């Protein structure tokens, strides 16, 4: 998967192992989830069956998967790009909100544009918003050496609360009871690809950008630079690569992708800015990225899985009454096991290849 033709072609067994393990972990997690469901007094087989049938048996429900898929994929790509560049951006959630704000502002206050201008303009605004929020953490790291993990996560909380405040005091229409902005202009709605479903322009955009990120990372000089910095900062420095410029590139792209996640929710699902915009896409995106070993093409697969599970959790509750906390627990187990399997597969490959000396 990872080899663009100047990428490694490792021993095949090793590769197979590394790919299989996270999925093995995934199925173990599903099994443990089944145990939990069973303990709640529900037939797990029936629950899982219902999940599959209700989602695949109904195009409209199936299309709901994509409402999660689009923001998740942007968040996962955001983490992956940053990770490849050695910048641990875990503030996707906050950047998502900020991107949603800037995107929504363009969607609401610029009126009368044709869609083919309004949509790119709003997306650009969302990208800039997310990039700006990530840039704050980046500049703190570059200028002061402040740890970006802490900063991005703290800035996330700040962003979420700030957007809450802005919506409540500035964007809420005066006559409205509810803390939410006005709707964005029709011209900024993502057009639907399949009518009466949630499959809209965002899906194509998300897939396209995943491919572009892949090409950027593995086929472009700038992406090469980013990866070099991420893999070995000192060697990159010795090779004359401008570390600060490279890191900034990563920060902007990573933040911008998270911003697009927020904008895509506003333009594709909610059509307005609301405070509870994301049910944790940022954090789930990280999980999906780790599961895909930060490969943009793998991310398409894993985010789909996570999005599917999200809809599945709702379906299982509606259909057979699996309490939501159990679905969260299953999701948590999947995250933990898959992340742990990353460590495991590293260890296994180390043992198999061995230290030859």
């Amino acid at each position, binding site marked *: 998967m990872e080899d663009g033709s100047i990428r490694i072609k490792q021993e095949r067994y090793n590769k197979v192992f590394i790919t299989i393990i996270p999925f093995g972990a995934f199925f173990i997690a599903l099994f443990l989830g089944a145990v939990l469901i069973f303990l709640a007094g529900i037939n797990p087989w029936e629950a899982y069956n219902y999940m599959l049938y*209700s989602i695949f048996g*109904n195009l*409209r*429900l199936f299309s*709901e998967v994509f*409402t999660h898929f689009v923001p998740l994929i942007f968040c996962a790509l955001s983490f992956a790009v940053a990770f490849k560049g050695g910048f641990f951006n875990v503030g996707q959630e906050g950047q998502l909100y900020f991107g949603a704000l800037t995107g929504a502002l363009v969607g609401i206050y610029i009126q009368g544009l044709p869609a083919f201008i309004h949509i790119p303009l709003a997306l650009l605004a969302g990208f800039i918003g997310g990039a700006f929020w990530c840039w704050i953490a980046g500049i703190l790291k570059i200028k002061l050496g402040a740890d970006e993990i802490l900063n991005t996560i703290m800035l996330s909380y700040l962003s979420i609360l700030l957007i809450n405040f802005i919506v409540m005091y500035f964007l809420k229409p005066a006559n409205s*009871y*509810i*803390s*939410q902005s006005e709707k964005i202009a029709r011209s900024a709605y993502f057009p639907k690809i399949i009518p*009466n479903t*949630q499959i809209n322009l965002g899906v194509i955009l998300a897939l396209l950008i995943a491919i572009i990120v892949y090409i950027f990372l593995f086929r472009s000089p700038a992406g090469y630079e980013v990866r070099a910095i991420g893999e070995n900062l000192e060697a990159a420095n010795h090779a004359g690569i401008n570390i600060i410029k490279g890191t900034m590139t990563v920060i902007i792209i990573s933040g911008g992708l998270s911003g697009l996640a927020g904008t895509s*929710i506003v333009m594709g*699902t*909610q059509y307005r800015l*609301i*405070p*509870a*915009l*994301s*049910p944790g896409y940022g954090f789930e995106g990280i999980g999906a990225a780790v599961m895909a070993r930060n490969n943009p093409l793998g991310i398409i697969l894993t985010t789909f899985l996570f999005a599917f599970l999200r*809809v599945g959790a*709702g*379906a299982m*509750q*509606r*259909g057979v*009454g699996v*309490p*939501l*906390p159990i679905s969260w627990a299953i999701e948590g187990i999947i995250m933990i096991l898959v992340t742990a399997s990353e460590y495991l597969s590293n260890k296994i490959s180390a043992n198999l290849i061995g230290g030859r000396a």
Partner: protein
Amino acid sequence: MGKNKLFSGVFILAFVLLIGFSTFALAEPLKVAVIFPQPITSEGWTKSGYDGLMKAKEDFDIEISYQENVSAGEIKEALRGYAAEGYDLIIVHEMDYIEPTIEVAEEYPDIMFAVIYGYESADNVAVVSGTNWEANCLAGAVAGLMTKTNKVGFMISHDSPIAHEFLNAAFIYGARKINPEVEVITTFVGSWDDTVKGKELAKALVKEGVDVIYSQCGVINRAVLQVCEESGIWAIGAVEDMSYLAPQTVIASAIAPTEYLVYGAIKDMINGTLKGGNVIKGIKDGAEDIVFNPSLKDKLPENGEEKIMELRQEIIEGNITIEQIREELTKQNVKF
């Protein structure tokens, strides 16, 4: 020719079977779903709605489902999920979700939606809410009954037309009905949860000589209760029976159990009377009422309870309406 006959025979048979099956399908129980924004375990509001659903399940032949903890970002998905799964009535237990509900309802014109305490409706979206005045009127009556200083306080969370035309008007009317001498001091807190401000305003009311306070301000109600307890004056509980919080202070509570809104909506659906638009449930539906604190019943003036119950009966029978109340008060030149 024989072939044609055979064909028509098969057709007729198929048609009969089809009708048979569809009647069989019609005989299937009604499918009802409720969407809650909070976990069903959270006491009060959500729990009450859940109880209503459970009660309906016991009383009627229906198939039920619910989804809890649905955030504003997920509401459309939950609605579409239920719609796609063929539910007949989908109840949203949160007024903030009215707009997404209307949006999804447009996609599914054959399904009935209901929003508890909504403020905007559509052809297939019913807004089920309390009267906003019946229980308040009785609370006012209790206040008028209990006051010795002839000054009672009414605390409302937000200033709005509904607050004046329903809440305040009904309360004043009720108080004056029992005690024409009474003066009602109404304050607007401007918040559902600023308990500090709520306490300040309650204390200010006490200073003005108020000896009964009725507070309709969410979380603030409990803070007001404290002030009443400390100052040794009467309090009237709101939304739930609050006598367990301050057994020596809460003389009565104007309750508004949402369980009867959920239950009522389901009942109307079964009776075929649920339609888009406003559906109002009052005392006669069990959605509102006044309950006295049993341990303080001896503190009521003579015939006090009877007077209140008389008024309650008149409301149930429809002899008093909110329009009449407003007219009356205007005639008497009482501001509300």
